């Protein structure tokens, strides 16, 4: 079955969405991510949507669900790389994506995740916490 890859990097899970996902694939990603967070005790999830040409209300709902689910499992989700045309369209469509943290790119998203983990994980605001 077709699936979107989830990579693990330390305390974080990384997902890069590179295909125009049909709805079942997006649902599978939501389930897979939830399972992986609980199995790996990941503390953060970073979803790169820079290749996504649209976000409609279905994908918007999936992203919000992932964020909600991860929070329950004590992990933070950051969505990165939304294209400007996608962001403008989302606003006009009427989706607020409230509850979803966003960052401009992968580096900034990683920095956000590290800082939200706080000192116990050696995180820092400026994203250079590679030690």
């Amino acid at each position: 079955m077709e699936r979107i890859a989830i990579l693990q990097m330390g305390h974080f899970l990384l997902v890069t969405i590179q295909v125009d996902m049909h709805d079942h694939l997006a649902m599978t990603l939501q389930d897979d991510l939830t399972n992986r967070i609980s199995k790996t005790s990941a503390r953060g999830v970073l979803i790169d949507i820079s290749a996504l040409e649209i976000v409609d209300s279905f994908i918007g709902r999936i992203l919000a669900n992932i964020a909600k689910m991860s929070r329950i499992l004590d992990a933070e989700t950051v969505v990165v790389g939304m294209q400007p045309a996608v962001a403008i369209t989302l606003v006009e469509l009427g989706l607020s994506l409230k509850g979803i943290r966003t960052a401009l790119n992968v580096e900034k998203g990683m920095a956000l995740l590290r800082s939200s983990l706080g000192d116990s994980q050696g995180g820092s605001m400026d994203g250079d916490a590679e030690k």
Partner: protein
Amino acid sequence: MQKNEIISINSSSDVVLVRQAVRQFAVELAFSLINQTKIVTGASELARNTLEHGGGGTVNIEALDRGTRRGLRLTFEDSGPGIPDIELALKDGFTTGNGLGMGLSGTKRLVNEFEIVSRVGEGTRITITKWK
């Protein structure tokens, strides 16, 4: 360019095909990236509605060339249950399923022309037009 294309919508991969075909028409009409994104997003919403609420159907994608005015018209048709109260269905957040209820109302905001014809027990036809 090709003037029109009809695609049947019977699965979630058909919804992807509709998005891709609408994108191709919009690119060939030289729509701006923003307008491409808006019409493809609207097409995705209405194609999903045709599938999930209408029980499947078709979309007719037409390139419009009215002299100096060029645009894209999409007509979604199904013979599903119909929409009993169109005004209510067009309210932000109204859903009879488990969606966000933003598909119809949001799509209306993304296009220039929006028309619903629906009869209970007979089906629904929704036409949207985006001018370049």
